[in-house]
């Protein structure tokens, strides 16, 4: 697909703007609409860290946004300065819960369904306390029947509710593939646009700590071809809450990928109501020499490698793509045009992963701007082993990232 996507054009709903009204219609992403709706060059870029700038050149911001270490503690000056209140510090799973709770308070049609989400509070505590607050019907404990309760969520979405379906582990959603592909993805189209499916499907995926092959899967690569769905991956408490809220408010089916190992990340997030644009990538560290595209947990391996790279004199630009479907080719493209070198670091398998699609998309659209072939570092095409040392080797490590950048920048 050779469309260059202006991801930022649709959203300007951060709380630093005076009128905080959000119109969910702005986010209607219709697969049938052509992508030729593009605004003139004068626009506002709203960054996910809260700062706004009226042009695309982030040079001036670089020093301010440099992230010195791989942990998400942004300097207070960059994130909190745009907000009047001090914000509160919380863990990623708490941020998800806060987002979910706020949306449930805001709209009584928002409900949660999944295994152990109610009385148990969710196996990763994302829904802890919600059943007590909202009742057993709004936070529904389902039997172990993924295909059917996902289908039930879709039927509920068609008839007026806004369900959030939790897959206890994303891998379990393999059992719901029938419903996700045929109904969630395609029903809006096959019904000729009559029905929308405002459903959010979320859950933890990715390689954890010795969870074994079946609990360590990356479903984003399997779902990415399904027409009609939108996929996002969160990586920090800030974007976790923002993406959760945006996904719930969206009229489209959104799959929100969380990562098992990121739930305990801590960050200070604003008190105000905010959302993150579902189709926008996040600039983590601006740079000049090479564009590193990543998402979810690999963001932290990349930032760790970035430390080493900076010491060696490199200046990598790190972008957390966040939007897995569709790609924010606008932000990505601008970066490629600047650095001319691309490294993709992902946790998906080598074959058929998000990185593979991203490589194709960049090659198709920005081939002329590349000075070197795109390097894509992915997990090995093997089932994730149980043994820790073996598991480590199937996933991309910071040392490999450093080596790849050195190779790219020769």
């Amino acid at each position, binding site marked *: 697909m050779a469309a260059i996507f202006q991801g930022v054009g649709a959203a300007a709903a951060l709380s630093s703007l005076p009128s905080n009204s959000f119109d969910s219609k702005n986010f209607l992403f219709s697969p049938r609409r052509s992508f030729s709706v593009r605004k003139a060059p004068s626009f506002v870029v709203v960054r996910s860290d809260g700062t706004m700038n009226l042009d695309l050149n982030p040079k001036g911001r670089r020093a301010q946004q440099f992230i010195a270490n791989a942990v998400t503690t942004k300097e207070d000056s960059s994130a909190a300065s745009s907000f009047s209140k001090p914000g509160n510090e919380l863990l990623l799973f708490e941020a998800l819960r806060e987002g979910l709770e706020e949306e449930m308070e805001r709209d009584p049609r928002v409900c949660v369904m999944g295994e152990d989400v109610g009385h148990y509070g969710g196996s990763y505590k994302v829904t802890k306390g919600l059943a007590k607050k909202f009742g057993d*019907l709004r936070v529904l404990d389902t*039997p172990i029947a993924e295909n*059917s309760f996902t289908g039930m969520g*879709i*039927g509920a979405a*068609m008839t*007026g509710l806004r369900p959030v379906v939790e897959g206890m582990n994303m891998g379990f959603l393999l059992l719901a593939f*029938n419903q996700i592909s045929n109904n969630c993805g395609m029903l809006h189209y*096959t*019904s000729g646009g009559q029905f929308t499916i405002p459903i959010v499907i979320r859950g933890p995926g990715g390689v954890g700590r010795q969870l074994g092959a079946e609990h360590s899967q990356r479903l984003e690569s399997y779902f990415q071809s399904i027409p009609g769905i939108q996929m996002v991956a969160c990586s920090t408490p800030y974007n976790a809450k923002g993406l959760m809220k945006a996904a719930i408010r969206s009229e489209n089916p959104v799959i929100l990928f969380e990562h098992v190992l990121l739930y305990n990340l801590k960050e200070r997030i604003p008190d105000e109501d905010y959302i993150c644009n579902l189709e926008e990538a996040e600039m983590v560290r601006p740079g000049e020499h090479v564009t590193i595209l990543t998402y979810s947990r690999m963001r932290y391996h990349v930032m760790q490698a970035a430390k080493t790279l900076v010491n060696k004199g490199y200046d990598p630009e790190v972008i957390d793509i966040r939007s897995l479907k569709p790609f924010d080719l606008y932000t990505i493209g601008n970066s490629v045009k600047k650095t001319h070198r691309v490294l993709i670091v992902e946790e998906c398998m080598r074959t058929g992963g998000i990185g593979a699609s991203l490589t194709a998309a960049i090659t198709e659209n920005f081939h002329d701007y590349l000075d070197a072939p795109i390097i894509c570092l992915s997990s090995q095409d093997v089932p994730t082993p149980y043994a820790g040392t073996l598991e480590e080797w199937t996933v991309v490590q910071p040392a490999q990232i450093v080596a790849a950048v050195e190779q790219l920048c020769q």
Partner: protein
Amino acid sequence: MVLGRAFEDKCAKMYYDRKMLGFVHLYNGQEAVSTGFIRLLKQQDSIVCTYRDHVQALSKGLSARAVMSELLGKATGCCRGQGGSMHIFSRKHNMLGRFAFIGEGIPIATGAAFTSKYKREVLKEADCGHVSLTFFGDGTCNNGQFYECLNMAALWKLPIVFVVENNLWAIGMSHLRATSVPQIYKKGPAFGMPGVHVDGMDVLKVREVAKEAIGRARRGEGPTLVECETYRFRGHSLADPDKLRDPAEKAHYAARDPITALKKYLIENSLANEADLKAIDKR
């Protein structure tokens, strides 16, 4: 029922004339089930079917023109030509779809029933007691989603009626060769809901059972499983040579054609006369 029969016959003609392509599954012979149930519903009640249900759509209120246009892939079709024969939807008439894969509509109907319960208990909306009906065949009754939904519907007492159109054949697979316990209605009590068997060729009997089941659901008493014994006069789809079915079996059921049966009943009981019935045919 007559409209349905005429519609289906017209579909067949267009298919053989190559004006209609793809998979088309006709309903001839099963009209009693559709009419018996759907005519008792309000507009806000939802129905979900599998692919054999042009007639359900007509019963629910979609215009024949919209459905036929859809089958011909026209933009004026009810789904703008995007769905086709196996995907008829109508938001206005709450027809939540026909689905190509068997079984995948059942959770959708369960979801619609869940919304109805949610609206009543959480949103406290007045005048909801909307019922959801899901139609599917004997083949689907061996599929996981069927059982998963029977469980959830009974567990939460959802306002849904599961209607099995047992026409004894799943393409070329006889129901008896595929099912360990062929009496499908017996599976209801296993999940805690009543299971009823009815002669699906007799529209008045179907209506009796339907009234009871829909009433139960509306009152909040929970789901019902209704097995309608019926038969399709034509093959599985218009592409099916239909060689496996025994002609004697076909003849047996042809004698119980629901339309002729109702005609006979109306005349015998002086509810209508020949002239009235001819007028319906003309329309």
